[in-house]
């Protein structure tokens, strides 16, 4: 089975590559680890997992750029750090927005003046909102030396806020701030007030804002790589699986030095996956993978899609989340299940919109219908539809990007990216024939449009339709998967072909790896990429197992040193 998976990969050139359009060249490029980089198609050359935690000489892993907490991570972390916190992050607090990056999962941006002010606002609002529930308000100082108590407080609270023990010099800095707040005649704060401001300061500090659990300590070298230490591993696990800070158990494991081997990591990952917080993360993965970000603000032309009311957007998101949760939490959490399981969950609004009758739990049996799995759900179809019609191009591009890990280059210069006004005498497919008859367009659009036209039975607002403005719909086409060209009659057939494609399954494992390590895989990660694809196949594509396996691999536990990094102690 594996050799079939790799047979197509070997033909793929090295990263990074976006093949230019035109001139009859193949349209799509490919990003990610080149298969040739380990020299062997079965992935056993190179180290993917270091059983005793030591990668040793010759092991490779990509770099891991410094990363700040994103919006969701910040909110979750604050809620875990301060369980009594009652801040309305949707209306009263303005957090820096994350960047949506094409092809990738969202990432927080650079901190400039504006963001510094936003973080100051956030810290002040957090402490103001906590009031007497702030940890600083609960410090009882038994001894006579308040400064000693302050020192103890910043060490213990600091370890939670920074997700690692503080270096002595860091404690000294915080105590110095405390002392200044107490003794400066223009400030002259009381004990607990001063500690509250120290907490504000910690929330604006790099120890809190950045994923930097190594602190001031030198990196641990392991061969030519840097091995993440136990506190870094605790946070790598918690931010991957929970989008939040480590819990008490994880911190205790880090304290005890029990996060150094792949098996120890896997044990924690398996435990954490059972926690409801992992549900949110899986939903976050699914919605970002399916590019559902625009759903919350999606508007459709009321004249064309009168039934698409704004409330439906949340119903559609909920459908996708509930369905994927059911599959991923169920006994067969497979890629094929996500794509082809013949049921869904709808609320009353969406039931009316689709014209289906759910059972008491909201479940709808889709056997024998034109819908199946995630890709024909309202959310995906509506987000990848235009406001007044379908968009085969966007749908096809989405399938290529997200299901097959291919990159479609942008259109050549001076192309008007919109179609002429609709021609009611023709189907959209007929109107878009120019895409395939013009050579410079055809190199990409022949593939892209064919995949998109498969979904023509779903209108621009995500509902099923029998015809295209009275004209019969031709949803048939062909696609090259795993090296063979196969034909399909409609979306259900295309989706089933994708679900059974090794190429698509392998892409799915890459998407998870990217989500886990916050970056694209690099050539140096190739052994792990191969390992994950192979292990996914071996497990019968058990996605929860894949998530656990990711935490065992070198790109999760190790990184290449950064250019210019000071590695000496």
């Amino acid at each position, binding site marked *: 089975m594996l050799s079939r998976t790799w047979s197509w990969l070997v033909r793929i050139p090295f990263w*990074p590559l976006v093949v*230019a359009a035109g001139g009859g060249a193949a349209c799509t490029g490919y990003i990610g680890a080149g298969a040739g980089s380990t020299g062997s198609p079965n992935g056993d050359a190179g180290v993917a997992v270091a059983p005793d935690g030591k990668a040793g000489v010759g092991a490779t892993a990509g*770099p891991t*750029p410094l990363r700040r907490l994103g919006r969701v991570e910040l909110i979750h972390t604050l809620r875990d750090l301060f369980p009594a916190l009652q801040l309305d992050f949707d209306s009263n607090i303005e957090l820096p927005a994350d960047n949506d990056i094409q092809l990738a999962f969202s990432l927080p941006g650079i901190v400039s003046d504006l963001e510094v002010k936003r973080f*100051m606002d956030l810290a002040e609002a957090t402490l103001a909102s906590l009031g007497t529930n702030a940890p600083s308000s609960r410090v009882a100082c038994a001894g006579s030396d308040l400064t000693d108590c302050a020192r103890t407080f910043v060490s213990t609270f600091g370890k939670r806020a920074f997700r690692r023990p503080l270096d002595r010099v860091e404690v000294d*800095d915080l105590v110095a701030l405390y002392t200044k707040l107490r003794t400066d005649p223009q400030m002259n704060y009381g004990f607990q007030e001063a500690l509250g401001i120290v907490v504000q300061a910690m929330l604006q500090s790099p120890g809190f804002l950045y994923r930097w659990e190594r602190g*001031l300590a030198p990196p641990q070298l392991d061969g030519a790589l840097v091995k993440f230490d136990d506190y870094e591993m605790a946070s790598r696990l918690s931010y991957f699986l929970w989008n939040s800070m480590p819990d008490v158990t994880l911190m205790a494991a880090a304290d005890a030095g029990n996060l150094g081997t792949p098996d120890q990591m896997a044990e924690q990952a398996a435990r954490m996956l059972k926690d409801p917080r992992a549900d949110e993360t899986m939903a976050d993965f699914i919605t970002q993978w399916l590019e559902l970000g625009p759903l919350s603000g999606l508007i459709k032309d009321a004249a064309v899609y009168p039934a698409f009311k704004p409330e439906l957007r949340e119903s559609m998101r909920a459908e996708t989340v509930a369905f994927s949760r059911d599959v991923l939490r169920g006994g067969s959490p497979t890629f094929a299940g996500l794509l082809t399981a013949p049921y869904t969950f709808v609320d009353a609004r969406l039931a009316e919109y689709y014209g289906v009758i759910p059972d008491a739990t909201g479940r709808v049996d889709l056997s024998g219908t034109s819908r199946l799995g995630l890709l024909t759900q309202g959310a995906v179809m509506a987000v990848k539809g235009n406001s*007044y019609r379908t968009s085969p191009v966007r749908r096809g591009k989405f399938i290529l990007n997200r299901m097959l890990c291919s990159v479609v280059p942008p259109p050549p210069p001076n192309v008007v990216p919109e179609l002429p006004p609709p021609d009611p005498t023709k189907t959209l497919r007929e109107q878009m024939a120019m895409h395939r008859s013009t050579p410079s367009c055809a190199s990409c659009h022949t593939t892209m449009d064919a995949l998109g036209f498969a979904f023509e039975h779903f209108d621009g607002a995500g509902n099923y339709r029998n015809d295209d403005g009275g004209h019969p719909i031709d949803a048939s086409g062909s696609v090259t998967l795993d090296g063979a060209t196969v034909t399909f009659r409609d979306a259900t057939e295309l989706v089933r072909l994708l679900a059974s494609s090794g190429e698509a399954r392998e892409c799915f494992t890459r998407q998870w790896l990217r989500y886990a390590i916050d*970056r694209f895989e690099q050539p140096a990660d190739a052994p792990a990429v191969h390992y994950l694809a192979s292990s996914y196949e071996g497990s019968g594509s058990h996605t929860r197992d894949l998530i656990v396996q990711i935490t065992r691999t070198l790109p999760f536990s190790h990184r290449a040193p950064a250019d210019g990094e000071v590695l000496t102690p």
Partner: protein
Amino acid sequence: MMRRISRRSLLAATGASGLLLPLLTEELAFGADPVFPKRIIFVVTGNGTIENSFWPTGTDGNLTLGEITSPLEAHKAKLLFPKGIDMRVWSEDNPFGGNGDAHHNFGAVLTATKLATGDPPHDPGGPGLALASSISIDQHIGRTFNATAQTPLPFPVLSARAWGRDGTGYATLSWTGNRAPFSAESDPRRLFSSLFGGVMTGTTPDPAVVRLLKTRQSVLDYVGTSLERQSMRLGTEDRRKIQIHLDAVRNIERQLQGGAVTTGCKPPTLAATDFKLMANFPALVDAEMDLITAALACGLTRVATYAIGDGEDYNIYFPWLGIGGKGIEFPTRHKHDIAHRPGVNNVDKIATEKWFMTMFARLLDKLSGVPEGSGTLLDNTVVLWLNSLNSGFGHSVLKMPIIVAAGANMGIRTGRLMELRNEAHNKLLASLANAVGVPMTGWGDPRFTGTLNLA
């Protein structure tokens, strides 16, 4: 010589956690023969114009404005229309590998260099976030002013934005260096607090204000130290990011220390408008223009950069102009839709661009309404009003719609159309920097070095 000036305390009135508190200090009144500082404002909008209705005709000193530019009639003697300026860093060296999507060119407008290439671990697929590759000219001018000023201004550059989208890149005009965005404030209330939040009652500072100010300074001082400590081992690229964060922290600390203000400085009154409603967009732009004008008048800054929209403008539409209903590509006829599909006789496009010119005229009214010596603030100010596209339909960046407004003391001969041919916009930017006393022989990409003679 400085002394504290006394003004109304806004601390209680706003109570916003976002309040920043620059304590303002009054410079001694200007002498009998004052030399006022030179100021510069960059205003950028997107989605192009309609050329035939934009450019004026006629001879020097006797211009006939186009339909779109007609709202500027009262100010036309102070306007220069440089016709034939191309954004050559974009048109000749497109970073998008041939894609003509110049909607994402804000990062190249004031830097006059091509955009940065992608960041491979995060963005191997292409241009990604449209990050700039070098410092923008507003930042360069602001830094030069501050480096030579007796008292550095609290805001080397005031960067504001009306609508557009959040996140880094795309909508960002102002850059402190390679891939170092300087985010713009889009909330007028926060902008107000940043600029004027700390003014005081009576002749002695309010102790509560001083305490809060000092607290924030102490906290930021700690944050800066932490950033310095933690950056020691980092690799080059990570250290670069932390340096930007650290610079920002030090900037805010300096703002909290306050700066000089001139006499006659008066914070504007901010209306209790819901600025998040599209129908109030005119009020939002008006308020932000008030704040920019006041910040310049008060000596809080000498350089302002103002983006109206984000170059794509999917979320700007025009209910107050009676333009509504179904767009051609989108459900609402927003600015992007109007530009892509101008419609019969371009009526909507002309109406909307004309509205922007009305707002330009209003900015000039505001600037000329602030007395400075025997003249006005406008006499000592140059405004570059630039549209980042020629037309939103063709996405061309050739013959960009640009207007320069310059006051009497700026050494720019106005009231005329300046016919040019394929001049790089780099040269215009360099000339404007020279006009405000920041000498240079060229700006941005060295292939397009040189200046234009605006005198």
